[in-house]
């Protein structure tokens, strides 16, 4: 059985940065190709005239889940070697609310703002600048937020373990939810007045 190529020791961790750059380029290309450098396209989710953001991210989630579970089942990936981002409940909620407000106001998330900047959009550049000012202020004021930042630590928590179900069953339910969302979004989109941009 093999796991992720770096954590299983097949190649040195010195390659981390190269992989990060290559994956980042691929991710950026996919975002731009999906039209995510346009804030009007992204904001369409909130106004109901364009659901491409939700569709793309939901598709990515179900494809990755299915792929990982099948590779694990076939013995090609060791699930236990995967890095799982730890959950800090309080900071996740606060950060999620702040990011949601920023997302709805500007029509960008951090990744898509970089795409927009790369293709020369001024609104993307302004968002990008604002994001770095925010990062700087947060870093400087970190001692004030430190307790909240680390509170509600749940470790590397998986959603299926919270509900006490198997990863396979959770993925099946996620796929059903995604398909339901695709149908619902298409229905809403037909009802809402088409916006040209």
């Amino acid at each position, binding site marked *: *059985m093999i796991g992720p190529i770096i954590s299983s020791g097949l190649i040195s961790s010195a390659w981390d940065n190269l992989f990060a750059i290559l994956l980042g380029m691929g991710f950026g290309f996919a975002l731009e190709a999906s039209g995510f450098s346009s804030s009007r396209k992204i904001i369409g989710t909130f106004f109901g005239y364009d659901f491409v953001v939700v569709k793309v991210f939901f598709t990515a989630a179900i494809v990755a889940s299915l792929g990982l579970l*099948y590779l694990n089942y076939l013995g090609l990936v060791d699930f236990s070697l995967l890095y799982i981002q730890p959950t800090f409940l309080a900071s996740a909620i606060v950060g999620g609310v702040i990011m949601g407000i920023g997302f709805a106001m500007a029509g960008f998330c951090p990744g898509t703002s970089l795409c927009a900047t790369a293709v020369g959009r001024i609104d993307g550049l302004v968002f990008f600048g604002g994001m770095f000012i925010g990062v700087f202020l947060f870093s400087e004021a970190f001692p004030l937020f430190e307790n909240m930042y*680390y509170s509600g630590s749940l*470790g590397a928590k998986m959603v299926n373990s919270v509900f006490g179900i198997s990863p396979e069953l959770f*993925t*099946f339910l996620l796929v059903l939810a*995604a398909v339901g969302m695709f149908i619902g979004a298409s229905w809403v989109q037909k009802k809402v007045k088409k916006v040209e941009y």
Partner: protein
Amino acid sequence: MERKYTLLAILVIVLALGLVVLPKSNGRKEIDPKVLLDGVVERSRFLSVDQVTHRIIENDPSLELIDLRPADQFKTFALPGSINLNPDSLLSPYGSELLGEPGKDKVLYGNSDLIAEKAWLVCSRYSINRLYIMKGGMNEWFTTIIKVQQATGTPSTTDLDLISFRNAARQFFVGSGTATHTPIVPVQKEKAPLIRKAPSSSAGGGC
């Protein structure tokens, strides 16, 4: 929905359903004895008590401490965040779920290395990854972290840093009070000699 999207939706539903209905493997794949031997010879499974303590203080979310001591000893004192697991239950569904949790470094320890080494060997045989042993177990942890140590001779900067870290760690676990074996004897207050003032001479005359 367009026809191609309908087909794709059906395909992912079938694939997801396949995951649910496929027969489950028992999840325990025994590794090649040669690979196990390499793991036994390799010493990287050991974490020092200082490394473990540092990660506890840092509240490292990827750390999972598995205390293999008897339950009564665990109740008397346990490391923060540790989970008590009877060695008999290592391969039970609960033990398998605990040890197979992804994204966690599982650190095994008993009072010494003996039981942790055996548990590590059994678990490694069943391909459980990210498994470590706290070198020396709780006895070593208590001796190193909780007992007061003083620098001897002329310690290097590294030694001083380590002692400083351990002192700070001790305060983290037991509070700022330091254990002392010197009995506290109440100090007798010295009696101040009483000096009586000589009576002043009576005022002569006056109003």
